[in-house]
């Protein structure tokens, strides 16, 4: 019994300590971000990362968005037709993508493709003493390595989400018009009628939060990885798993809060 208590206690202390370490890491990053984001050299360092995070992730995001749009359209058509709402299929596809699936899927893709790569890169730098070398040279590693990576994830995840939404909506349009015989005009008309600036804002807010969280978690895991190839590998896995869970949990709480806020201000909104 004593052993169980001891193990639980040690685990609790270790978890609280890790959480505190992450908080301190995030705080140091924010402090540097405030002073460094106005400096040209920070953006010079960030440009190659824009390419890495943005350009190289775009194809996989577009493929994901397209197929999710296709599936949503195919799955919803019969039910909508039965209710006589098939011309509003675009609303269902678009609102699902803009508010929920776009940010979540783009976030998951960024966490998998970019977050893992960032953790591996920084983890390798840690193992090969490059991060220590920065410290010894009086160059703060958080300022040099974390701030540009955080900025790239923070700013490009919303842009990638936009492409995911766009591809999904176009894929839905393709199914609606070319396979199900719905006229093109009503498809876009109902989307314009139903999607408000608020919906776009909700999706945008989520994608910014997800992007920031992915950047921070990936860098933290890279900075604190254990030695050896196994340590780097484990850090990459942990980085993705923690980012993925963070995305899902944050999505729920942000969605719950914002939908409550909307109802409080404008009341219930019907999409039909």
């Amino acid at each position, binding site marked *: 019994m004593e052993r169980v208590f001891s193990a639980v206690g040690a685990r609790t202390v270790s978890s609280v300590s890790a959480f505190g370490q992450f908080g301190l890491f995030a705080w140091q990053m924010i402090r540097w971000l405030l002073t460094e984001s106005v400096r040209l050299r920070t953006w010079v360092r960030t440009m190659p990362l824009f390419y890495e995070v943005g350009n190289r992730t775009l194809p996989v995001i577009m493929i994901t968005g397209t197929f999710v749009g296709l599936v949503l359209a195919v799955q919803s058509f019969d039910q909508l037709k039965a209710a006589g709402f098939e011309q509003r299929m675009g609303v269902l596809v678009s609102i699902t993508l803009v508010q929920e699936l776009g940010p979540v899927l783009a976030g998951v893709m960024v966490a998998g493709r970019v977050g893992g790569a960032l953790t591996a890169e920084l983890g390798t730098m840690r193992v090969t003493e490059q991060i220590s070398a920065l410290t010894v040279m*009086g160059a703060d590693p958080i300022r040099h390595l974390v701030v540009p990576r955080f900025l790239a994830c923070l700013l490009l995840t919303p842009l990638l989400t936009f492409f995911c939404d766009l591809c999904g909506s176009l894929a839905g349009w393709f199914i609606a018009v070319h396979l199900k015989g719905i006229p093109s005009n009503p498809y876009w008309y109902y989307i314009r009628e139903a999607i408000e600036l608020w919906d776009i804002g909700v999706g945008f807010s989520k994608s910014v939060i997800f992007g920031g969280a992915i950047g921070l978690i990936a860098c933290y895991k890279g900075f604190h990885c254990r030695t050896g190839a196994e340590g780097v590998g484990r850090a990459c896995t942990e980085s993705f798993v923690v980012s993925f869970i963070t995305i899902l949990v944050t999505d729920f709480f942000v969605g719950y809060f914002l939908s409550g806020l909307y109802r409080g201000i404008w009341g219930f909104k019907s999409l039909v």
Partner: protein
Amino acid sequence: MVDHSSSNVAEPAPNHQPVVRLVDVHKQFGDLVVLDGVNLKLRKGETTVIIGESGCGKSVLLNHIVRLLKPDRGEVYFHDQRIDNLPERELAVLRPHFGFLFQLSALFDSLSVEENVGFPIAEHTKKSRKEVASIVRRKLAMVGLDGLQDKFPAQLSGGQKKRVALARAIALDPEMVLYDEPTTGLDPPRADEINELILKLKGELGVTSVVVTHDMASARKVADRIVMLHRGEFIFDGTPESIARSNDARVRCFVEGRCAADVLQTLHEKGQT
């Protein structure tokens, strides 16, 4: 008990003021005591070699000098300024006084040789690109690698990486250069090149050097003073000449590259069972 086989080097001479002082430094990782009340004075212009078996805490000691690690207890001074409790931002001002050659070279993979060597200069000075390039060329020439500016670390051999890392370590003309296992992983001629460079830098720049190694040939060649760390304490402090005359069995085993008698006995016993 420290073996001061050569008593003339145990205490600093009046004209050799210590650049760095470690006072009663303790460091522990979990249950493992790595440094157990270590005292060390590193004198100006002197090359001190720290020897000891693998995992005895030599690199940990080196990391305390540049404050990559903080002691659990004890104090570290750079000249008269205590640095073990200094905030990182204040410490950043002192960092250019130290150059550090890492065991794995620690060159930045994504930067060229020129950018690697120029990195500390760009970080701590406001020199123009042209001036930085000129300093980089001079430093690379000192280590015999001028002309490799455009190469990337992945294109260099192990010995070349060490020399580029050394050029980076001396880019800001530091007062003290620390070498962590500088000859590890190099073939004997390349290792000797590094030894010669350590001597050359001492002669040309007058730097205070600390070399961590378990390569006795290297230690004998570059050291003015050798200290041996064993189970968290110094058990020898003397000249390269005096270490060969040490009566301490642990020191003799290390210097002669022999397995300790008790370990040897254990190995033989295990072999019989």
